[in-house]
């Protein structure tokens, strides 16, 4: 089957915060750019971010990027790369000002500057007291940011391919990346997008779990494509459970609620976080709060008739504050929890929220893989930014607000690396003969598959397995069993079947193609988690309760081929600052 082909200087896959920030840079530099998105850009999952963007503007009280860097390294439980973290924290204020200049409707202080709220794990003077660092637009910061970036791209005449799903990465025999294959949903047509530089900004994959704050579209497409093309995935055992998902519904309630003065209670009405984190209390980092909550539930202090959730109290805040700073939360609580938070507390549980791991990248947004003795050889023509990438700024646990910061900083940095690469490498390499082979055979299998299980059935089984074997608390025997199970499910997924054979907007086919990606992410996560014999950040093992810097201060690399694992060192040396040495992590 010969596929149609179109050529561009750059292809960006994904139009969330990172993809749009990168696209803007590329479009404005006059390159020919194609931005592919499964959904209309403003429907990308960045839209759901609520609490804010972390940047040490110092609008509220004294702040410094060094303190932001310290908090991020400590938040990462020392697994974050300190060069990338320094880069992000130093660049952040610039990128936030720029976003303001683009028209972002930030909340304001009386003096006209951007309002900033306190957030978990963000502190003044190296952990002394909470600081107000989160730049926000009420509790709709992601929405405001995504729309602002889209609007700026409209101004820049960025070329979008809306409702196109990228299917596979095109690499030649030298390993260079030359674009992607992609499916136009409306027509069912498949095409090769031949690119001199390719950026993945495909977001997260929370949909491998049964209960997640993530949107349906968060299916790890970039990770699946990378893994199938032989690129390893980094630190996939680290999944963030957000402390406050609405019990039963999974919908996110921002940490900004606690930033604005809300706090958690157990069934006895005790403010239990005071016991677990005496200084930061409810504003400790997310892994710490989620573990505390899971412990409360486990030890019988959960609320409700089944004792399976905790209470987020904010009715001591003035209704005016709630309506001004947290209007979206009030709406969500009423809709999804049948609770008006002005009167009653919201039932919440730790819920899968963010993937700290991803496609291995450096702070310039270049994808890097081990080659010979070099653990980080650049893959020519391939870039990754945002949640799908592992730079790694979040290490074993991401701080709230740092995801949006990550999107802006590394979206722009990746685009600048691409522009430089394109200048230095003016030619265009030919596509290999087998460029579309993998895609064509995946589609042919789906068309011809008979007697398989339904995609929904297999996906449900995968989500259930991840939830019960790879949760907040992890146990050696359930992890071993989880690996076995997830391999079995991967096998079933490879035979899953769809009934819909239409060419036009075939969502069954899309979900089947997404399952191919989800299953790679699930396998990578379970296998990497089983192998890491320590507790660090979001990864908590019952048989190895402590962080083990002697043996495990290193990044995991998972290869699809044979579920092989390798490890590489953490970058302990920042760009200009002094190394923040590992120490015991308390809040």
């Amino acid at each position: 089957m010969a596929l149609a082909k179109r050529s561009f200087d750059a292809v960006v896959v994904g139009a969330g915060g990172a993809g749009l920030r990168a696209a803007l840079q590329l479009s404005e530099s006059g390159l020919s750019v194609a931005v592919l998105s499964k959904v209309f850009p403003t429907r990308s999952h960045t839209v759901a971010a609520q609490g804010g963007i972390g940047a040490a503007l110092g609008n509220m009280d004294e702040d410094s990027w060094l303190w932001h860097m310290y908090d991020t390294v400590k938040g990462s439980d020392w697994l974050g790369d300190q060069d990338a973290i320094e880069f992000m924290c130093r660049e952040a204020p610039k990128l936030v000002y720029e976003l303001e200049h683009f028209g972002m409707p930030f909340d304001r202080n009386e003096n006209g500057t951007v309002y900033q709220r306190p957030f978990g794990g963000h502190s003044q003077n190296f952990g002394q007291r909470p600081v107000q660092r989160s730049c926000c637009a009420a509790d709709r910061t992601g929405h405001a940011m995504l729309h602002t970036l889209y609007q700026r791209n409209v101004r820049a005449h960025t070329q979008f391919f809306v409702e196109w799903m990228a299917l596979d990465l095109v690499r030649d025999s030298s390993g260079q990346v030359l674009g992607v294959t992609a499916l136009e949903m409306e027509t069912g047509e498949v095409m090769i997008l031949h690119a001199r530089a390719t950026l993945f900004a495909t977001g997260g994959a929370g949909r491998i779990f049964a209960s997640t704050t993530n949107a349906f579209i968060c299916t790890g497409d970039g990770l699946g494509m990378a893994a199938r093309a032989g690129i390893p995935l980094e630190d996939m055992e680290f999944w963030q459970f957000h402390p406050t998902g609405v019990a039963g519904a999974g919908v996110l309630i921002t940490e900004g609620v606690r930033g604005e003065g809300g706090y958690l209670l157990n069934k006895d009405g005790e403010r239990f976080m005071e016991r677990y984190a005496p200084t930061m209390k409810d504003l400790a980092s997310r892994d710490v709060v989620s573990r505390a909550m899971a412990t409360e539930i486990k030890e019988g202090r959960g609320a409700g008739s089944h004792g399976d959730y905790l209470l987020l109290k904010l009715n001591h805040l003035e209704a005016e504050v709630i309506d001004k700073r947290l209007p979206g939360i009030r709406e969500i609580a009423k809709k999804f929890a049948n609770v008006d938070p002005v009167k009653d507390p919201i039932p919440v549980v730790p819920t899968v929220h963010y993937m700290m791991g991803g496609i291995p990248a450096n702070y310039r947004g270049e994808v890097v893989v081990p080659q010979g003795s070099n653990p980080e050889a650049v893959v020519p023509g391939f870039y990754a930014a945002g949640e799908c990438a592992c730079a790694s700024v979040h290490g074993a646990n991401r701080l709230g607000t740092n995801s949006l910061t990550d999107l802006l900083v590394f979206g722009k940095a990746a685009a600048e690396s691409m522009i430089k690469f394109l200048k230095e490498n003016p030619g265009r390499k030919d596509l290999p003969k087998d460029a579309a082979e993998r895609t064509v055979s995946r589609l042919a299998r789906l068309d011809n598959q008979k007697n398989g299980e339904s995609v929904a059935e297999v996906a449900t089984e995968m989500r259930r397995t991840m939830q019960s074997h790879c949760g907040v608390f992890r146990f050696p025997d359930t992890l071993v069993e989880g690996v076995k199970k997830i391999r079995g499910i991967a096998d079933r997924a490879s035979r899953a079947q769809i009934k819909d054979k239409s060419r036009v907007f075939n969502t069954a086919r899309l979900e089947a193609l997404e399952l191919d990606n989800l299953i790679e992410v699930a396998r990578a996560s379970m296998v990497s988690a089983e192998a890491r014999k320590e507790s660090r950040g979001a990864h908590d093992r019952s048989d190895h309760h402590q962080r083990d810097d002697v043996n495990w201060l290193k990044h995991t690399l998972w290869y699809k081929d044979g579920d092989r694992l390798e490890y590489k060192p953490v970058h302990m040396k920042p760009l200009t600052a002094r190394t923040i040495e590992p120490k015991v992590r308390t809040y």
Partner: protein
Amino acid sequence: MRFRIFRYDPDKDEKPTMQDYDVRLDPHDRMLLDALIRIKEQDDTLSLRRSCREGVCGSDAMNINGKNGLACITKLVDLKEPVELRPLPGLPVIRDLIVDMSQFFKQYHSIKPYLVNDDPVPEKERLQSPQEREELDGLYECILCACCSTACPSFWWNPDKFVGPAGLLQAYRFIADSRDQATGERLDNLEDPYRLFRCHSIMNCVDACPKHLNPTRAIGKIKELMVKRSV
């Protein structure tokens, strides 16, 4: 629970039909979208858009028992059976509940939906008082779901000429922004018998908006500014 759903696949159907579904729900299924996912598990040919499932991305707008809304924040208990679901009215149907939104986005793009400010870029943020910022409340929250524009008869008749409530709400969002310097051009861009003035204030848009925004009020403000500058 019983549903009647609009079905049309141009790949095989000559004309649209309504298909009946009777689906057993799980106790956790609270919203219409939950039920649609349940139906799709049984019949994977049913096509719809969906993503965030919490009313912020704007993907799953549809016509629900005659009224436009988002499936993900429409409670099942509030719906009369059989629940009749159709694609958003007035836009070409691609398949089942999926409509072609090109015309809708073309109108959105036509109002130049971005901040215009030609002053030299300051080193830090441009200052804006909390009162000036408040002017944007009720405007910037739009999720571009198209519930409003596709509930508007003026948009049905002239989708190519009338900007429609969603686009006009955004036009006013930039006019109202103290940082924007293009009010004159923005008003020029709407000074036309169709683009703005096809709005006859019947307020279907206000009724349809799942985010409780008020395009009619924004349109009224634009009209006021038009009058003000002409005297």
